[in-house]
């Protein structure tokens, strides 16, 4: 039986690793050299956050599982990331818009998590908030450039927004697991993030001449282990060596 704190920490870790993995797919294929380096930087930040969070999750669980056991030896139903981060990387508009939507949420989220009563989570959040500030600034600048760039870039950005918007609702979900942790001052209540997120989205979309979609029906399930078809393929790559050579040291 997973404890709420373990599940909560794992959700944060899985979000970071899966999104970091998606960003890392760009390495060597970016639209320009400077952006290739920037995408790799953000991927490295997220993988670093995931490593700290997995190590903490393993310690909370107390069964001796390491960061790599958690990343490499779980199948899809045991992954707790939101569906947003597992979407395939798409084109640059899709990648950078997803990064913006995620960072606009995670930046204020980590600001609050830095005051968590769980000292390790607070320390990880305090480090990560600086990284997310950069991700937010960088991705917002690109959203504006693409939205107020050429006809093609604006059309691609709009298309990406239509694809991504239904996946933003899951960031704000709270279940019983998290409710108790929020009340105990350990987890962050995403409802408290909403005003900051809305303000960022509205401001940047305004500059990008991008209409904000209505909050209609939203996708859900990742945090409970109900994933899209894409996560399995990601894990096939991620876990290939660990699965093919069980027990080896790398």
């Amino acid at each position, binding site marked *: 039986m997973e404890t709420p704190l373990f599940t909560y920490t794992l959700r944060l870790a899985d979000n970071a690793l899966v999104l970091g993995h998606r960003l890392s797919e760009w*390495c*060597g*294929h970016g639209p320009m050299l400077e952006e*290739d380096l920037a995408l790799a930087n953000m991927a490295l930040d997220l*993988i670093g956050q995931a490593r700290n969070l997995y190590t903490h999750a393993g310690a909370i669980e107390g069964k001796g599982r390491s960061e790599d056991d958690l990343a490499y030896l779980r199948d899809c139903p045991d992954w707790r990331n939101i569906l947003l981060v597992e979407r395939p990387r798409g084109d640059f508009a899709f990648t950078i818009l997803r990064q913006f939507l995620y960072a606009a949420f995670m930046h204020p989220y980590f600001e609050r998590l830095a005051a968590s009563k769980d000292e390790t989570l607070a320390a990880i959040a305090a480090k990560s908030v600086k990284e997310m500030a950069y991700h937010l600034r960088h991705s917002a600048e690109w959203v504006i450039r*693409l939205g*107020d760039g*050429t006809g093609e870039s604006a059309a691609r950005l709009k298309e990406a927004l239509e694809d991504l918007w239904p996946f933003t609702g899951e960031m704000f979900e709270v279940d019983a697991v998290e409710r108790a942790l929020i009340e105990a001052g350990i987890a962050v209540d995403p409802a408290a993030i909403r005003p900051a997120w809305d303000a960022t989205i509205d401001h940047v979309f305004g500059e990008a001449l991008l209409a904000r979609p209505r909050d209609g029906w939203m996708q859900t399930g990742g945090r409970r282990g109900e994933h899209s078809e894409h996560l399995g393929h990601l894990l096939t790559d991620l876990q290939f*060596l660990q699965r093919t050579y069980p027990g080896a040291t790398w």
Partner: protein
Amino acid sequence: MYAQALNVAEKAHADDPELRARFQARVDAEEKIEPNDWMPEGYRRTLVRQISQHAHSEIVGMLPEGNWITRAPSLKRKAALLAKVQDEGGHGLYLYSAAETLGVSREELVGQLLTGKAKYSSIFNYPTPSWADMGMIGWLVDGAAIMNQIPLCRCSYGPYARAMIRICKEESFHQRQGYEIVMTLAKGSPAQKKMAQDSLNRWWWPALMMFGPSDKDSQHSDQNMAWKIKRFSNDDLRQKFIDATVPQGHFLGLTFPDPDLRFNEATGHWEHGPIDWSEFNRVVRGEGPCNRERLKARQKAHDEGAWVREAALAHAEKRAARKAAAKIAAE
């Protein structure tokens, strides 16, 4: 027309024996040549060719290792590999900047790469089918690159020499990281050890070829030595690399795929068997296992990025126009 006239004027200037003599005296005195200094046209051309080839090699070199970023076997290895490939992109960036100080644009140089006019290091036309190749590239390919590049930190052209100082520091870190991957495999399970040996068998000869043709067949050496762009011969550097690397391989219990490899007590050097230069020439000509694939991957990234670059430019122009309009309105 105008550009042509300029070229002619420059050419006449370039042949000025007095300027040439003064230039050579500065090089002989180990002074650094800087972008605004007079330099012979051949010196400038040689540097543009060499620095841009080096930059292209860094960029194309991201592909064989990039092949394993999503499949690295642990989070620590994944982060280290991603950071390493990112470093290579960074090296490409400062090398293109160093080349730009000689009056060529990055766009022009990238264009030469994509049309196949410019070369890059042939080593990156070999595939990376196994994880062990990540170790082998670090240990052997970066190891060979360092042997070639350390003398370039003293290259007579200032911007190139300074770029190389930073690059060499990072490369030597990559080499240690690569050797550590190979060591982990060599001390691992029989399957891992086999993976390492198989990878060494594939990379050893191509790594030795990285130093270029044997001195007796090398075209550019003498003039480049006089200009202090090059300081050691291909064969000398290759020997240095072999002497450093063979004991490291033996320490791991690995075997080099050269039946003639033996230590000469009298000279203190490892002697190697004949290098198959026909293979080298084939791969340089474009007939290596991945030449077409590598260039196509670069072309694809370039083409798919075109709309992004255009958007960034269009946005910058709109901003500048709005700023100018606001300024006029304020006045």
